């Protein structure tokens, strides 16, 4: 294992090109490292997505509106990391308030994909995925509302897990869409994901939606054996429009698991086609409310106060939010506003029920479901910025899991002709992260995709 100093050196070497880090306090890291470290992750550097509160450290969600904000508290996951002996290794880039699939909406500018710095790393946890992929840190925390862990993990060739909703406390995670957000690990390999999840999972009395479960050691689920496992293959996720290279890589990965003794069964998730529509009602609606608090009163940016309170609010918000944040606030406010609530918001909540029921039914026939994580590999910087709808469709395969609250993991499963990483998504039943780990670990141990390094 590399020392933390070697990781710091790696950051010095490559981050000028990758731009994963938005804040790093080397003095604080050295000081932390000097203290004797004990625990499950003793001395392991972990990069933190910039939407997780770290006491006294800048926490901005990559937004101008939170410029200068230093929370007087730690997120629960940060507390847990500290207790596990991990080294907090700075804050990494993201789409502004996690609104995006490319890291291009960050107020700090885009992070680059280590496999091709002309391309996006995915998003919104693009900084986390790029930092791990380029070897700047072995582990990072991300958050996933519609694919924000799995999609960048896939595009950067690393492992990313979105746990079941409620497994990890959201306390201190700056909310995007409260009913969909989950924090999860982004790591180089499946075993590290299990280690990191073991540290951050667990009930928190400060999060009403966190689940009371006994402490679970997910590393015990790292079993290289899928005999008897039934994999569901949903026909709706292997459709025209996905990159043939992606399709080929994922199908090859499924064959590999079959060769290891798993069965496959064709299943149908008929309402998944509505997931993007459903999500783009629910997520912006919750976001429009969650982002109401950024008004210049208590923290962050304050706009022109010379023309009174209402103008101060609008000036703060107009200057503080980027275009994508504004777009989502407008969309969410619209779908909640009187006259449209039933047609949009309530309708979306009902469709959410149907999407969830699809999974419940499917899991009667199989233990896990495998799909491509994304329809294409990493696209070029700037390619989709002006076409929000096309950008939204990048998350078409990851969104359903958030709506249903089920866990999903993306593992590297090959490369496109342009040598860009491809991710395979494994979805599981509520609270069945163990089976995901078993399937992902077995696949990983029988292949070498995770061992490939980006050409930096």
């Amino acid at each position, binding site marked *: 294992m590399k020392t933390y100093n070697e990781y710091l050196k790696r950051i010095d070497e490559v981050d000028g090109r990758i731009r994963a880090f938005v804040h790093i306090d080397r003095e604080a890291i050295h000081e932390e490292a000097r203290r004797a470290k004990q625990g499950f992750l003793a001395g392991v550097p972990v990069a933190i997505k910039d939407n997780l509160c770290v006491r006294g450290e800048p926490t901005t969600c990559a937004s101008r509106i939170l410029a*200068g904000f*230093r929370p*007087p508290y730690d997120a629960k996951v940060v507390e847990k990391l500290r207790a596990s002996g991990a080294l907090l290794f700075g804050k990494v880039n993201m789409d502004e308030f996690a609104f995006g699939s490319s890291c291009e909406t960050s107020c700090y500018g885009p992070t680059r994909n280590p496999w091709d710095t002309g391309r996006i790393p995915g998003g919104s946890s693009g900084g986390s995925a790029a930092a791990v992929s380029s070897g700047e840190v072995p582990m990072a925390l991300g958050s996933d509302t519609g694919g924000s862990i799995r999609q960048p993990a896939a595009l950067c060739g690393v492992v990313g897990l979105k746990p*079941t*909703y*409620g497994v990890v406390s959201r306390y201190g995670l700056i909310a995007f869409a409260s*009913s*969909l957000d989950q924090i999860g690990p982004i790591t180089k390999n499946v075993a590290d994901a299990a280690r990191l999840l073991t540290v951050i999972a667990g009930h928190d009395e400060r999060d*009403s*939606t966190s*689940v009371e479960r006994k402490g679970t050691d997910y590393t015990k689920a790292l079993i290289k054996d899928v005999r008897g496992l039934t994999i569901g293959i949903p026909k709706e996720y292997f459709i025209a429009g996905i990159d043939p290279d992606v399709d080929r890589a994922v199908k090859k990965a499924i064959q590999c698991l079959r060769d290891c003794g798993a069965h496959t069964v064709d299943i149908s998730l008929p*309402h998944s086609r*509505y997931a993007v*529509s*459903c999500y*783009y*009602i629910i997520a912006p609606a919750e976001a*429009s409310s969650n982002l109401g608090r950024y*008004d*210049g*009163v*208590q*923290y*962050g940016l*304050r706009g022109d*106060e010379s023309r*009174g*309170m209402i103008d*101060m609010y*609008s000036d703060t*918000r*107009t200057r503080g*939010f980027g275009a994508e944040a*504004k*777009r989502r*606030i*407008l*969309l969410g*406010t*619209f779908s909640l*506003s009187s006259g*449209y609530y039933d047609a*949009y918001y*309530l*309708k*979306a*909540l*009902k*469709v*959410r*029920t*149907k999407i*969830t029921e699809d999974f419940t039914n499917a899991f009667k026939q199989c233990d896990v479901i495998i799909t491509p994580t994304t329809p294409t590999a990493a696209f070029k910087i700037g390619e989709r910025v002006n076409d*929000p*709808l096309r950008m*939204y469709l990048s998350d078409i395969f990851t969104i359903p899991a*958030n709506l*249903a*609250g089920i866990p999903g993991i993306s593992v590297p499963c090959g490369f496109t002709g342009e040598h860009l990483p491809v991710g395979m998504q494994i979805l599981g039943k*509520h609270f069945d992260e163990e089976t995901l780990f078993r399937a992902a670990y077995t696949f990983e141990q029988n292949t070498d995709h995770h061992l490939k390094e980006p050409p930096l």
Partner: protein
Amino acid sequence: MTNEKLNEQVVRGVAKLSRLNLSDDELRMFAGQLADIIRYIDDLNRLDTAQTEPTSHAVSGIKDVFREDTVKPSLSPDEALTNAPKRIGDFFGVPKIIE
């Protein structure tokens, strides 16, 4: 019908509700993009949900989560006000409101 739902006038009203100022160009741009998105989203209307209950929580079955009525230490005024753009004594200052 669909295309008219999110016209510039509606976007202007929604922007006001959201405390956002939009220039004419922005208004036109957002109205166009949001209309595209809503047109895509209107696909939901093909689904019959008359008999379907809404889901507002990702994992059902979590219920009755309470805390007991005990006082725990608060932040100090200094901690509470450390990020304040305008601090006046132990208060947050905001532009004067005339009621």
